[in-house]
């Protein structure tokens, strides 16, 4: 192929609005862009003047899919600023809540957003007829994730139970026992999920680009809820920073083709997300999850961004088995009523968690009345935009060189973006109807 023109405006099966534009003339790439045209939403301005007890409720609305993660990052930043040290029970419940969100979102992405590409379907809807059992399994797992998050968070979307210093309402020990039974009952569905992903793995493109991967690294466990910032370079070299120094890693900058800021650290871009966590914390995966990685032929350092979806499948298994361990600890001790820990001071602090799409930072400063005077949020999808662009810049010439058609090139680029599971922002959901009677 010597000429090609790819115009994908409003890419489907991703969260929000992103465009792909590629021009190839006489085999030469003239244009190759991942564009993000969405308007900024000014959450950092919205939290100013808010009391510390309100801030997480506001910032949880940054995203409907990752509202648990935004709540937890916000709470951690507020607690760092206010000198609050949470209890062991709160820490365990939050870890359980974090697993619920990652599980729920990963099931959504693997089954509903990514899988259709691998079986040649435009969406999950036609798969209900051709792969009914798989779709039903996906819905069972999705429901489990939704209800798991609702139990711990008070509700899945914009959780209300988690508050600065602890929990406003707690699940009962009996409810946790019931959740444990549900997770155990889901294990066969997890095994089937792994088999499904493994059967589709040969269709995942074999693209590789040396990449820096940034994720939380936690001494206690696979980094999700807590830890320090970790960089994993293509040769496996590692470096660690405290979350309070997140700006040294993110180094935000602006580019003409995007309303979202880009980030970079040691290389021209870096990646966040499930694959970044996999590469940074592989040894801390639950043994059952490591078995899944082996079954999918994955080991660190993996530089194929398309395998982010496979890494999500690995994490789905990890989250269930790790949560069973956390549940055993909580059930063993029994749930105790605890009042949220009050502030010890008012100042500035940062918090980081791993949301499904990668590392998320919140930072706030509070005055002596407990009112927010500064907020900063750096979301993982923004951290991935630069890396998607750099992937494009290597992938497009490779596609041209291998003689791919425009349609094949379009699909390859769409699949690449979807593999990052971007959550650009929340677009509208309103119904648009006409009445038939």
């Amino acid at each position, binding site marked *: 192929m010597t000429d090609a023109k790819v115009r994908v405006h409003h890419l489907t099966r991703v969260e929000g609005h992103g465009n792909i534009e590629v021009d190839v003339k006489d085999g030469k790439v003239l244009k190759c862009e991942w564009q993000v045209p969405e308007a900024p939403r000014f959450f950092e301005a919205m939290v100013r003047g808010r009391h510390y007890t309100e801030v997480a409720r506001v910032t949880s609305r940054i995203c409907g899919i990752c509202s648990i993660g935004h709540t937890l990052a916000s709470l951690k930043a507020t607690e760092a600023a206010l000198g609050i040290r949470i209890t062991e029970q709160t820490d365990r419940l939050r870890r359980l809540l974090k697993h619920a969100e990652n599980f729920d979102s990963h099931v959504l992405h693997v089954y509903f957003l990514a899988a259709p590409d691998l079986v040649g379907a435009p969406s999950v809807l036609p798969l209900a007829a051709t792969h009914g059992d798989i779709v039903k399994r996906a819905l069972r797992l999705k429901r489990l994730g939704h209800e798991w998050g609702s139990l711990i968070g008070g509700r899945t979307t914009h959780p209300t139970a988690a508050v600065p210093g602890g929990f406003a309402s707690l699940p009962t020990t009996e409810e946790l026992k019931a959740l444990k039974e549900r997770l155990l009952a889901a294990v066969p569905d997890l095994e089937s999920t792994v088999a499904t992903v493994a059967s589709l793995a040969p269709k995942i493109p074999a693209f590789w680009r040396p990449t820096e991967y940034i994720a939380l690294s936690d001494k206690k466990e696979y980094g999700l809820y807590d830890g320090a910032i970790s960089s994993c370079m293509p040769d496996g070299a590692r470096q660690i920073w405290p979350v309070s120094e997140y700006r040294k890693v993110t180094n935000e900058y602006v580019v003409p083709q995007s309303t979202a800021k880009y980030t970079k650290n040691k290389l021209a871009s870096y990646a966040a997300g499930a694959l970044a966590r996999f590469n940074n914390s592989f040894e801390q995966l639950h043994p059952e999850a490591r078995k899944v990685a082996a079954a999918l032929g994955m080991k660190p350092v993996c530089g194929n961004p398309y395998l982010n979806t496979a890494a999500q499948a690995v994490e789905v298994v990890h989250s269930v088995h790790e949560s069973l361990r956390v549940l055993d600890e909580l059930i063993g001790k029994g749930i105790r009523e605890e009042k949220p820990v009050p502030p010890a001071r008012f100042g500035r602090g940062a918090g980081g968690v791993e949301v499904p799409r990668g590392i998320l930072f919140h930072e706030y400063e509070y005055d002596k009345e407990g009112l927010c005077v500064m907020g900063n949020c750096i979301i993982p999808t923004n951290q991935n935009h630069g890396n998607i662009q750099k992937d494009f810049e290597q992938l497009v010439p490779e596609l041209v060189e291998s003689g791919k058609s425009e349609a094949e090139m379009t699909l390859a680029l769409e699949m690449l973006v979807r593999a990052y599971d971007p959550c650009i922002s929340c677009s509208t*959901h309103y119904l648009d*109807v006409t009445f038939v009677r």
Partner: protein
Amino acid sequence: MRYLIGAGSHAASDDGIGLRVAEKAAVDGLEAAHGFRAVALRGGWIDLLACFEEGTERILVVDSARMGLAPGSVKFFSPEEARSVKVLGGAETHGGDLFASLELAKATGAAIPPLEFMGIEPYSVEPGMSLSPELEARLGEYLSLAVARLGSRPGGCGACPSRA
């Protein structure tokens, strides 16, 4: 179980009206008092299917809807009485709508419980974290309409956690 489902996005002005109605139902403590469960679905239209369970008596979905009516108007309608004319990219979390979830449920053979939409014609679905002043002023009225439509059951069902 009866469900009051609020759908939409807080980030698109009046598209958040369904969520606000469901959230207000929970905050005002109406679930236990009236025997329903309020659920806010934002972006997670697939999660509507979690309510399609044995024992679900009725579902009322409150959502911003472009119906060709005057802004602020309310219309109750069943899925059979309307069809979506929204241009969708497929079964997405954000590009889809609740009609897509019904289509998926039907395709998997799931039993769809009695379900009705309460459409509220928006003034604006432009980016913005607040409802229009007109819809904000009528939030309580919309909630009352939704609760009345679901049917009051004084004393609550006793099994409904106060969550939205």
